């Protein structure tokens, strides 16, 4: 029965330095048929380059970007700063979600005012959260 269900989205990207969390996100997204293709990125900088390379082919951009906050090198906030400077075609095609372990009040305040962030999600990703996103996405469309 699982095989017959059509995934809700074509492509998503998970940016997280923790391999376990990347694996969980991928497995969960596959299991609950959230996306056809799941791109995993362990570095925010590489993720940024990847998105930039798709600037002229917006159809290939990930529809959702799951972004971790605490990462070595470029962290989630620094990624968002760069992201805000990307071209309009990228920003209108992607939805950025911040994924954290628990909502730190300071983080929450900081991201609440960031126009690029669609919402916050607590780790680990699970069925409920994917259903919620599908629902909110349908409202947005």
């Amino acid at each position: 029965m699982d095989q017959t269900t059509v995934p809700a989205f074509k492509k998503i990207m998970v940016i997280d330095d923790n391999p376990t969390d990347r694996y969980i996100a991928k497995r969960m997204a596959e299991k609950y048929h959230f996306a056809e293709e799941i791109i995993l990125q362990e570095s925010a900088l590489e993720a940024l380059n990847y998105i930039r390379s798709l600037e002229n082919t917006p159809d290939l951009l990930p529809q959702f970007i799951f972004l971790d906050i605490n990462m070595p090198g470029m962290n989630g906030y620094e990624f968002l700063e760069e992201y805000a400077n990307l071209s309009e075609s990228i920003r209108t095609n992607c939805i950025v979600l911040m994924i954290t372990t628990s909502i730190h009040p300071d983080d929450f305040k900081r991201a609440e005012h960031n126009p690029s962030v669609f919402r916050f999600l607590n780790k680990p990703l699970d069925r409920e959260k994917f259903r919620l996103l599908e629902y909110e996405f349908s409202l947005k469309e």
Partner: protein
Amino acid sequence: MKQEIDDLEQSMHIQDFLFVIKRKSDHLINYFLISFFIVGLLLSFFYDTWEIGIGVGSLLLTAYYSTKYALPKSNLYQYVLSVVLGIFMAQFIYQMHGMFEMHFMAFIASAILITYQNWKLQIPLMLVVGIHHGLFGYFQYLDFNKIYFSQLDYMSLQTFIIHMILAGAIFSICGLWAYQFKKYSEAHIDLIFNKRETENQELKRANYELDRFVYSTSHDLRAPLNSMLGLIEIAKEDTNEELMLNYFKMLKGSAKKLDGFICDILDYSRNSRMEVNYEEINFSELLKGVTENLKFIGDNNRMVEFKIEISGETSGYSDKSRLTTILSNLISNAIRYQNSQIPDPFVSIKIETSQTETKIVIQDNGIGIDKEVHAKIFDMFYRVSQESVGSGLGLYIVKEAVSKLNGDIKVQSEVGSGTTFSIKIPNK
């Protein structure tokens, strides 16, 4: 702005200090004045000057005390005191028919006035002495009868001038001491205040850093723990083996318990760190959120019935996050420690708001708590029994949060019949 507040606070400290000095001095002055009055009575024996001893003496006491009680906030009574002491001197000189030693009373008065640490108090005394000496000396010089200023026939101008200069010198010196004492006190208080202020700042910073450390550490501990929980979920789906499923269930239980510990520590540190944030509270919405989150706790899958009753003429004003902490801790305890012998477990939550306060009563028919340990249950890390599943922080956090909201909490409980927590929180 901050500087202004500090200055204000500092001058408040100086005022406090001066107020204490004033109160003590006032107290001593009572004894001095009574002694002066009694001395007046004693002196009346010598030349039978009872009218003066009683009349002038009581008039002076009346003048002093009526000013003091009519204008308690003003310092005017101290100036009246200065005049009164001057006139006592004049009275004693008269009563002793000009006995020279009675002039010393002016110096005693001058010394007494130092206690208020105000050099200006010497001025009225100086004036009284000047006027008295000038007037009475002159009248005696004119041979008026019964002036009794000096036991000499009259005081020569040269003697009079030297007399006044020396008196003036004494008043000036006493005034100078008063001024010096005040300056010194102020400088000393400034010093103490600044030192204490620095120490306070340092303590506050150390405390903040410690809280911040606890917070960040707890926060960071949750990240790998949640990865583990995620993995357990995935692993569970990938096996049908009974034994494995059992292991995963146990693993998940332990990980959840650890997570519960960390969340408790986070709650505790958040409560001590965050400012109280007052806002309008919609209790039915708040409770909906709390009970929603607590639906799935407890090992036995028995549903605990929630009986919610919200009443009151006004909506509550309080801190939402602390109220959530309080309610979810108490309600989750009620669910965790339900009585398996009883067929219909419930937790009843009654909230009543009035203009002045919010009353919250949370009652269950759970296993209850032995009366002997009621005093200890709010202690940090106290756990009622070996079967207690929590960290021992829950009720401690509840008590801390309630006290942050200036409220109070009481417990009533009996083993086997249930527990009731009653909370009162002022409605700000």
